[in-house]
Structure formats: C-alpha cells, structure tokens
C-alpha cells in the first residue's frame, strides 16, 4: 500500500501490464468469455422480445417475426444464445463460489473454467434435447 508522503511530488507507480501482454490462461479466458457472452446475449433478447411483440400486435406482423425466428438465422441466434446463457450462468455461479472464498486455488479455479466451458456445452445439448 502506498504511504502518504505529504510531498506534492507524484509517485512513479508501476503500470499494470496490458491485457495483450499476459499469457492466455484458463482463468483469464473464462473471465473474458463471461463478459462476451453477457453482451452477446442481447442479440437473443432483442430477437425474442421482437417476436413476442409481434405475437401481441397482429397476425401479419407475427408472420414476419416468426419467419425470422424459425429461419436458419433465428435458429443460429437462439442456439448461440442458449449456449451463452448457460455459460454465463455457470460462470456467475462460480463467482458466488469465489465470493464464499471457495475454489480460489489456481488448480481449482482453472478446473472450474473447464467446468463452465464443457458444462455449458452439455447443458445446451441437454436443453435442445428436452425442449
């Protein structure tokens, strides 16, 4: 921790290394993926809300939105969103564990990263099978 010197001279502090300098690791990749999936999910949310709005408004409007929703593009967005939501879900639960001071050892944290990635793929397949 920095000590207050009382002088007006600015202390030369070391700069934090930039993201590009770090070696890619499971802990960093799984963290970055959490942010990416959280934002990418907006594509699915926007498509879903638009589809629901169209269903509420009229038959012709629903025909348009439903055509997009059930097209290859809509299926791609929805399947991608499904994986993103499960990844974000598991990664979020991991943060709850971290907050309880569990799983912070490097080996365990890296293992939990793999749990998020492989688990989200598994849950995506499981959801598609069930629904």
């Amino acid at each position, binding site marked *: *921790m920095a000590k207050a010197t009382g002088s007006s001279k600015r202390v030369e502090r070391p700069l934090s290394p930039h993201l590009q300098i770090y070696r890619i690791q499971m802990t960093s990749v799984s963290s970055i993926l959490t942010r990416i999936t*959280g*934002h990418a999910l907006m594509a699915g949310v926007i498509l879903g809300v638009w589809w629901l709005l169209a269903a509420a*408004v009229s038959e012709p409007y629903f025909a348009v939105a439903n055509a997009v*929703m*059930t097209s290859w593009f809509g299926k791609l967005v929805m399947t991608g969103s499904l994986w993103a939501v499960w990844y974000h879900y598991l990664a*979020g639960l991991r943060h709850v564990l971290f907050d309880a001071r569990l799983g912070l050892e490097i080996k365990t944290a890296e293992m939990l990263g793999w749990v998020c990635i492989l688990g989200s793929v598994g849950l995506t397949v499981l959801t598609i099978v069930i629904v």
Partner: protein
Amino acid sequence: MQYMTDRKRAAGAGAAHTGTLQHWFMTVSGVALAVMLPVWLYLFGAAIGGTRDQVVAAFANPFTAILTALVLVVSMRHFAKGSAVMVEDYAHGTARKAGLIFVSSLAAVIATTGLYALIRIAL
C-alpha cells in the same frame, strides 16, 4: 506505534465508492436469474415454433406471464449494471457518459417493450 485505523489508511487510496453496491446487486439479480432461468428457458423454448394462437396462449398463462416479466426486468437491470462496468473499463470522458446512457436506455427500452407485449397478450 500506529494509531491510525485500517479504514483511515485505506481512505483515499483507491476507488471504493459504489463498487460494493454494484457487486452485491449483480449477486442478488444473478442468483434470482439462476433460480428462474431453467424453468423459463423451458417455457420459452417450448413456445418457439408454434402458431400465433399457440404463442399467445402460452404467454397468457399467468405463471408464464409473471415469470417472463420477472426475467425481463431482472435480466435487463443485470445487463445495464454489468454493461456499465464494461463501459467504465474501456471508455473515458464523453464516450463513457454516452455509453453509460446508451446501455441503460437500451435495457429500459427492451424491458418496457417486452412488458408491453406481455400485458397485451396476458390481459
């Protein structure tokens, strides 16, 4: 001998303003979503691909309507707060202000549109 308390030594040493509140909000909303999502994903997924009558009937169900409204509101607040942190990480000055206003507004527009659709279907 040091008479200064830990708090006094930490005061002014770094950013610790509303970060704890933000983090706690993300925990509360995240856990709420974790409870609701498995059921909601099933209901939403099952409704995709149906005719308009089937979709309307699915979301007119009180349980589905209330759950969808909750998921919409909580997830959009969760998004707005989470996305704001990303804006604060990467943008500065006017771009930061514009970005913060944009993500907050986007979340509000989506949540309100979804609620409008739900009310029109369910009532």
